[in-house]
């Protein structure tokens, strides 16, 4: 079940805006990896910092060692972003020429952008920034898929499905199903599996 890792540790950052289901995504992903026999360390910030602000979970995957809950700067291997500008915010701190970025395309405008004090880069600009700063990158419209499934908050699971589709980590549909049946009702599992499948198909 436990495959050798391509690198040890693999440093993953999941980011987004408070309320997008960032923490839940990191828990589900970590649960899948623990079930597969890996040592996982997660570092998170939540509490008041989540109120409309940037949220970040650091997830570190190793086959043998316990690590710091904070990934050192410039050492991320995979960045999963529920919001594109948050992908950039993480990328400039933790990025390196080999990092893989998987980002949702749906923008959540910061207050300073809404008021007109700041400018939000266009999706094309963001794509070219990804191209310059990441080894690999994908931008998908996970929120629209989630809205079609009936709830925008499912975009976090669409992103996890897409991550499985990108084959960057030893995770698959069966592992996802096993993890969510532990904590969700049958009805909820079904819609989450649908979100996972839709995401997986997007890559």
């Amino acid at each position: 079940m436990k495959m050798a890792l391509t690198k040890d540790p693999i440093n993953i950052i999941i980011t987004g805006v408070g309320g997008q289901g960032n923490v839940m995504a990191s828990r589900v992903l970590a649960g899948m990896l623990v079930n597969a026999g890996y040592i996982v360390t997660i570092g998170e910030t939540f509490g008041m910092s989540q109120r409309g602000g940037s949220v970040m979970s650091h997830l570190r995957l190793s086959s043998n060692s316990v690590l710091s809950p904070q990934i050192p700067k410039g050492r991320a291997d995979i960045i999963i972003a529920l919001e594109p500008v948050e992908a950039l915010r993480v990328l400039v701190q933790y990025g390196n020429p080999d990092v893989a970025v998987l980002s949702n395309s749906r923008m959540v405008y910061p207050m300073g952008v809404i008021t007109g004090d700041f400018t939000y880069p266009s999706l094309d600009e963001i794509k070219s920034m990804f191209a310059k700063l990441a080894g690999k990158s994908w931008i998908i419209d996970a929120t629209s898929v989630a809205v079609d499934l009936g709830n925008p908050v499912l975009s976090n699971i669409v992103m996890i499905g897409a991550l499985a589709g990108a084959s960057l980590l030893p995770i698959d549909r069966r592992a996802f199903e096993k993890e969510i049946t532990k904590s969700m009702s049958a009805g909820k599992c079904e819609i989450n599996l649908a979100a996972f499948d839709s995401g997986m198909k997007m890559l």
Partner: protein
Amino acid sequence: MSKLLSLAKTRVLFMGNEAIARGALEAGVSVVSGYPGTPSSEVIERLSDVAQERNLYVEWSTNEKVALEVAAAASFSGLRSMCVMKQNGVNVASDFLLHLASSGTRGGIVLVECEDPGALSSVNEGESRYFARMLEIPLLEPASLQEAKDLTKWAFELSEKIRNIVILRSVTRMSHASGNVICGKLPGNTRMAEFVSDGSFMDPLRGPVVSTPVVVKHNLQQQKLQKAVELFEKSPFNSYSGPGHPELLIITSSACFLYSQEALDLLGLQKRVGILKLGCTWPLPLRLLKKYLRLTNKIMIVEEVLPFLEENIKVATMGMLRDTGIKTFYGKMDDTLPSVGELNPDIVAAALGKIMKVKPKSLPAGYVREIQKVASKIPPREQTFCPGCPHRASFWNINTALKLDGREGIVCGDIGCYAMASLWPAIGFNTVRTLHSMGSGTGLASGFAKLEAFGQDKPVLAVCGDSTFYHAVIPALINARHNKADMTFIVLDNAGTAMTGFQPHPGLDMGAIGEPLPSVEIAAICRAIGAKVAECDPFDLEGTSKILTSFMAERGSLKVLIMKQACALSPEKKGKKQYQMKVNEELCLGESCGCNRLCTRIFRCPALTWDRAKKKAVVDEVICAGCGVCYSICPQKAIIRTEVAG
């Protein structure tokens, strides 16, 4: 089944706070109390989930001092008990803690305090480790998630061995980190409560539990501390890893141990630098310290936030110089590391690299230039009130009333999400002008209101949340009433301790495990104090404004307005829209309206955004919570609300 009850020897992914909770269960804890506060709240939340199965009494107390008293009663009765709070909660509990440590305890009792270096979710960076030294109490600090569980369990045993309370200190990066923990055995819990006090005055197990005669009890307390140090000398929670003859020795504790390990890894210094990790940090085990100080003459101390370990180690070294030789210390006192904010592997690596003259691997120069270019184009994301947050409407009301009143009223703030109204541009105007500890806004307002004789003629207001009201506001409110303070006191009642995750408080009709309890009404308390009391719905802008302006105009007494509206994230509201909102583009006049974009510059709801192409306001339906308040603020009536069926 809760994963907190996982079988012995299984490997489980626990959050630090869950590991602490499991440790308490493995120790056979019976009574758990506390007051919610990030990063500590999950310890009690998770124990509430298993309270019935494990026969626990779990209580969210009104404040930390009461919580500690509740836990102490269990200890006096021979049960094991735990009290949990965030760093500044220890300040609140400290008066009782001083006397408790002097009277001594019976059943094992542990005070778990979770600190927040960097103030990620606090309005202070308080250090409570100093309480351990000041009040002469043993202090333990776990340095991994496994230790968070194991050390908690051991803390109960230690407390029972020395018959005194023990402090276990965690930090945000421990409490809110998650990792693999191997579970131990859950004992059968059969202890019954029996408070025996028929023995002689000095009998620690059968006499009265008092802190007198003070000098005698103080002496006994110090003997207990000495006994704890003897156990620390042999404790496996203090351990050394590294070469036999390191060039430099790092002494560290808590999450900083993990940062130090990572820093060695980043710099490739594992064969040159050793790490002494201390799980028992007060009082320091001196024989153990001497043994490792002898290894080298360069000592670096890595800790958060203040130089607590550093001070204590330096003082201890002064007494052992003949054995250890002269040392060079690196830490906070010589600015090797900062004395504010949290540390991380990079900060530790940079400091260590400077001492050892090695550099971590850096990114290619071209890549760094690209990073700088991109970084300059990223708009900042400030914290804001959530879509549908009642506080946005409440402060809109307060601001409107202040403007109508025209006398530049002073608003004193308090602790909760509503603190954002003071420091951040969460809304497009400033209202709250002071922000300190729980309940302090009301005490400050009481003081401001008495400055009339010295020329202070602005109206005085104070705000506080519902949970804060019970925690520390009541004495200040009685003070205001008794001393005839002319002020308007506003309760922002959002039906729970919202900021920390909806823990119940005495205003609700249920307790920590959902059991039915009688509620204690805020309005009834205020009326009993003698205040003039009114209640309103802050979403009703017109009605609220009427009461507020009339309260501010009325001179000479204490007025209380309770603004009632549940938090948008509360379980009963989350995901349910009352209204479907839409901007009528025909009616919205954009920049030419003359309102200065009241909706998107002043009201500032994340769901009410600006269409740059059309130059009109637009509702982001994915984010909108459907509270409908923005309908009332648009002078053009361009924001349309339609009630959602069901």
